[in-house]
């Protein structure tokens, strides 16, 4: 076991067009079943009333879906959890809409699209939908967004003894923006992380920071990566793969000279590894 800190994963949520739930994703990641052929366009989080579900921006639909699945997997009331929402680019479809409307007819900007354009829109909708008054944050760190967001969640768990929801998501670039911003598909994942090994804990994650090292990748990573290929949050798949296998190490760069090292271990009280 590596030296450092330990956090406990109580719940996991995943969604992409070919990974519609953690249950299916973990089987696919373990190679037990092939990836779904029929891809779904976007999730339909039951947290939102039907009319809002349809109108919600893609980032909101994806992040609320994975966040609510992680909470139910953890048997935690969403209103009790502080949260960290990470997205590399935010809602690229709304950015495209804003920039295009400003170029064509700025006075026609939709007020709803404008307030949905903030990077914390998904976190804000989550707080409203769940009635959660605990703090949330919304972060970005370019291609290192998954790791830096995860670190903030782990730090909150560690130094405030908190039980924290971590949500990471990105969607595809649209319009002229797609020529400079690389992100395709829709993908999100969420973890409920606790400081203590509760009855709900499914995995222990030992973590530490270290000098920049080359990322630890298994051969599986390359295959798994193809499941979310091109999405700006694709890096999440390394940790999800270790969780699906209930063991293994991975490392992420936090900055040019610093990395986040993680080691997943199954909990002894766990009856089924991906339950």
């Amino acid at each position: 076991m590596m030296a450092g800190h330990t956090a406990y994963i109580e719940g996991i949520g995943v969604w992409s067009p070919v990974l519609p739930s953690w249950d299916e994703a973990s089987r696919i990641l373990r190679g037990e079943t092939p990836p779904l052929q029929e891809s779904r366009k976007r999730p339909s989080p039951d947290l939102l009333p039907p009319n809002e579900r349809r109108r919600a921006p893609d980032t909101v639909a994806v992040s609320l879906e994975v966040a609510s699945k992680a909470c139910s997997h953890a048997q935690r009331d969403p209103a009790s959890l502080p949260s960290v929402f990470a997205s590399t680019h935010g809602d690229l479809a709304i950015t495209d809409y804003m920039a295009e409307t400003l170029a064509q007819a700025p006075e026609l900007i939709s007020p709803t699209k404008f307030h949905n354009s903030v990077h914390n829109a998904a976190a804000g909708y989550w707080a409203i939908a769940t009635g959660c008054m605990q703090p949330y944050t919304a972060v970005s760190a370019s291609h290192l967004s998954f790791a830096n967001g995860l670190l903030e969640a782990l730090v909150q768990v560690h130094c405030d003894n908190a039980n924290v929801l971590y949500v990471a998501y990105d969607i595809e670039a649209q319009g002229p923006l797609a020529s400079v911003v690389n992100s395709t598909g829709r993908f999100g994942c969420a973890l409920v992380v606790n400081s203590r090994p509760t009855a709900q804990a499914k995995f222990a994650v030992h973590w530490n920071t270290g000098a920049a090292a080359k990322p630890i990748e298994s051969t599986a990573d390359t295959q798994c990566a193809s499941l979310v290929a091109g999405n700006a949050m694709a890096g999440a798949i390394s940790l999800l793969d270790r969780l699906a296998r209930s063991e293994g190490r991975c490392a992420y760069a936090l900055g040019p000279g610093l990395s986040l090292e993680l080691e997943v271990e199954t909990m002894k009280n766990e009856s089924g590894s991906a339950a």
Partner: protein
Amino acid sequence: MPIIPLRISAFTATSAAGTGVDEMLDALRSRRSGLTHNDFGTQPVDTYIGRVSSVENSPLPSHLNRWECRNNRLAWLGLNQDRFLEAAAAARERYGKTRVAIVFGTSTSSIGATEEAYANLDEEDRFPPHLRNPLVHTPHSTGDFLQHALELEGICITVATACSSSAKVFAQAERLIRSGLADAAVVGGTDSLCGSVLFGFNSLDLVSDKPCRPFDASRSGINLGEAAGFALLERDGGGPKLLGYGESSDAFHMSSPHPEGLGARKAINDSLARAGMAADAVDYINLHGTASRKNDEVEAKVIGDLFVTSTLASSTKGWTGHTLGAAGILESVITLLALEHSMAPGTLNAAQLDSVCGPQIRIENTEAQLRTGMSLSFGFGGSNCALLFGRGG
């Protein structure tokens, strides 16, 4: 729950009210507003803005010109005031390149560059060549720029929670230092004027066609502004301190505050708990005070309910406009200046306070010994943050 206070070993801010803290302090004392009639863009909304005009004549140095855009220029202009770059470099030397974290707040980052590209697409709908640069078309643009400008190699993260962004950076940095992941942190924020916010807030009927009048009975909306500000946080030593912080969510509405200010109250109470202090120990509060009808009404009620009558409170947005994601750091710096110079700024442009205001909210500046100051920031999506600062010994 109380935290060990952190030392604020350097701080700076640049806004329409001044480039660096000396100009800011002078503007506060002489009650000189930085607001001017909106001349930003080709078809400006009829409103007033807090514009930092010198940005246009301050290109990035050649070794950093890959990040060229208005937001990063403003960040660079801000970094170069009050010997902040030197202080950050000294921290880098003292602790090491991976031991000084960057926690940076912004709302719209360099989206102005994306807007510019869309306004100048070629016949095949491609960006013009000088804007085909992924570095500036992403929320972390300025955070990434800072990491290169400050030559740091550790944790570098952008917090983007709308108008609470560069307040929440203090909380995140405190956690990083407390958990031993960093020895020091550069915190701050930058937001620059852009079409998205001018036309966006206009679409919500929130901008005023007059200079904004926070807490005035006849206030008619906000003025947008731009600013860059930074602070260096370390564990030990004398000088001003971060005493506490509180964060919360309204869980109410995307663009309206909770009607009873429940989230704001929770953030204020948490900041006091982290500082191990009671509300009557707060001498000055720099309010969010945007001059929107709703924010000021809710906030005034919260202040009247929670604080003693001797606490001085004001909004300084009549000097700077609402600088959105940079408001947290800008108003934290104003709070630190108030403590250092024993001068609580009043509320510029307000003439007749709304009847909902308690005795705490002041129009005039007040000379007084101030030991502790609070800064409040509330953002879209119901994100609230209260920061508590202590004067240097």
